[in-house]
């Protein structure tokens, strides 16, 4: 339920803004000049705001498409991300957004058309070489679909750009929008997972692993390509047993041909973000793990990280061909 809508006065008449006003007639509407007036001030409590975030409607005037290194991709040589939405419905304790953003309010950039023309331009510039566009970098791509209409708008758009791939990264089971439309050949619906016990402990408000597997299976059976994102890998007791069980559950649920890729990513976070999140949740066990500072990031001690990734690799390779397995190399912050 949205009780407060802040909106930039410049986009008051945008059809998407007007649509929100119609859908939430009881919400208090508060004008602002720029979304950063509401979102950016220091001295806000992400933790308290998370209880009842407001919606901020804004226009993204800056650059909309950003490059990411190939080492973060799943096979493409040109990789980009874009953020139509800042913040997430869910509340994963390891999520870097809590450390990066001063506010937990949802910022929705209503000018989807400008994102799309920048993507189109990139597509045209790159000619025949396939490029990847990752959504859900600063949010979950589907969790707020009923609010944002993101997939409903971007899927038909990508259907016209066969050389451009869209990754829809999610932990949501709100996949009706995908079920209702023909699968998109150049899209991957990428579900992120941690083992059930870890998910219960750290992924607050996220649907259970079982229900996500069910949603994923349904999409796979409808012909959608599925990605598995084991990211972040979390050190825990009974690590091998828990991750082996998770992989078994995931792989057996999917028809082999629907599995596009599996990627592994270690738990890593820029030190500044980590410190902010630790202050929000000083008693969180995750932050008291066997961690160390490396190259501007907080991560598991090198020997643990190496061991856990290699365990996951070998467990996965007993189920899938190595061409489908990707390791996400973290960006080193100097």
């Amino acid at each position, binding site marked *: 339920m949205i009780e*407060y809508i802040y909106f930039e006065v410049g986009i008051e008449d945008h059809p998407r803004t007007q649509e929100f006003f119609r859908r939430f007639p009881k919400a208090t509407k*508060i004008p602002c000049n720029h979304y950063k007036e509401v979102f950016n*001030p220091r001295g806000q*409590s992400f933790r308290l*705001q998370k209880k009842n975030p407001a919606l901020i409607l804004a226009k993204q005037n800056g650059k909309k498409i950003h490059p990411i290194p190939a080492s973060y991709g799943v096979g493409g040589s040109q990789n980009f991300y874009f953020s139509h939405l800042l913040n997430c419905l869910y509340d994963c304790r390891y999520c870097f957004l809590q450390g990066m953003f001063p506010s937990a309010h949802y910022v929705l950039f209503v000018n989807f058309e400008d994102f799309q023309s920048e993507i189109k331009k990139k597509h045209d510039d790159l000619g025949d070489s396939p490029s990847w566009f990752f959504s859900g970098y600063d949010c979950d791509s589907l969790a707020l679909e009923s609010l944002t209409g993101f997939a409903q708008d971007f899927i038909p758009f990508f259907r016209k750009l066969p050389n451009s791939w869209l990754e829809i990264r999610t932990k949501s089971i709100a996949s009706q929008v995908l079920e209702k439309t023909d699968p998109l050949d150049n899209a991957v619906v990428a579900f992120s997972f941690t083992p059930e016990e870890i998910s219960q402990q750290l992924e607050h408000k996220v649907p259970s692993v079982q229900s996500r597997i069910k949603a994923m299976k349904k999409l796979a059976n409808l012909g959608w390509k599925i990605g598995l994102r084991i990211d972040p890998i979390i050190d825990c007791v009974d690590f091998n047993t828990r991750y082996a069980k998770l992989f078994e559950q995931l792989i057996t649920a999917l028809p082999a041909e629907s599995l596009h890729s599996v990627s592994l990513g270690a738990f890593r976070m820029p030190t500044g973000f980590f410190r902010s999140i630790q202050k929000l949740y*000083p008693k969180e066990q995750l932050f008291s*793990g066997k961690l160390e500072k490396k190259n501007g990031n907080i991560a598991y001690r090198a020997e643990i990280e190496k061991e856990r990734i290699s365990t996951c690799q070998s467990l996965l390779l007993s189920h899938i061909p190595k061409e489908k397995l990707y390791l996400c190399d973290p960006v080193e912050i100097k």
Partner: protein
Amino acid sequence: MNFIIALQAEAKPLIDALKLKKVSGSLPFPTFQNDNHQLVVSGIGKIASAGATGFSLGKSHAQDHPFPFLNIGIAGHGSLGVGTLFIADRIFSENHSSIYYPPQLVDSEIIRSPLQTCELPNRDYQEKKGYDMEAHSFYTTASKCVTRELVQVIKIVSDNLHQPLDTFNPKVVSKLVETNLPTILGLVRSLEKLANEISPDRETLAFRRDALHSQNFTETQTHLLVQLLNHSKSFDIEEAKILQSLKNENSAKSALKALAHLIEPYRILS
């Protein structure tokens, strides 16, 4: 909870309801207190309000426990009726570029309204907004030290187009506040509850104090110790065991080492 209120007449109903006692001694502002509340009567205008808020912040140990700050008072309004209570959702001032948007997390029936802080009493009620003389500088000062969700401004309409300021009878000020007291106290309770969610509990603070006094820690060591104490809390390690391990050592350095050693086996998610 800290209240910053311009006039004694506006403050009186709260002083009575919360049984606040006047703090004796030579203080820059009349101050009233009980165990959990502090009320400072600022006087009229931005400078007085900023001064009283700064004074209150200095007395409230905001760093240990995030106490909410509430500015209450009467205000003119462009559309609301006299006696109506409203909470400011946007606060701006004629002479400042900064605009504040106090995050609204408390579920309440109180009407929300923009509020403009003016240098002089307002006699023009053109727009649908409130007019006061303190809120902006109160917010500027309080939000420097207290998280914005806990800094709020509520006003009661005293004058509008139909009953302009010149016809206002100052004798009814207390009555206006008194009539809205149940709603105001409800908001106070909700803000206190919110503050408790992000405050370390009293036992944790006492335990931390004991641990800090167990050895002569330098500033850097104190920082490390607090970090280790938080870790020990996250794994529910017995406090007595921790204090003992610190006290058993004969230097701050070895105490930290002993504590790190004690926590090490726990450092994994179960």
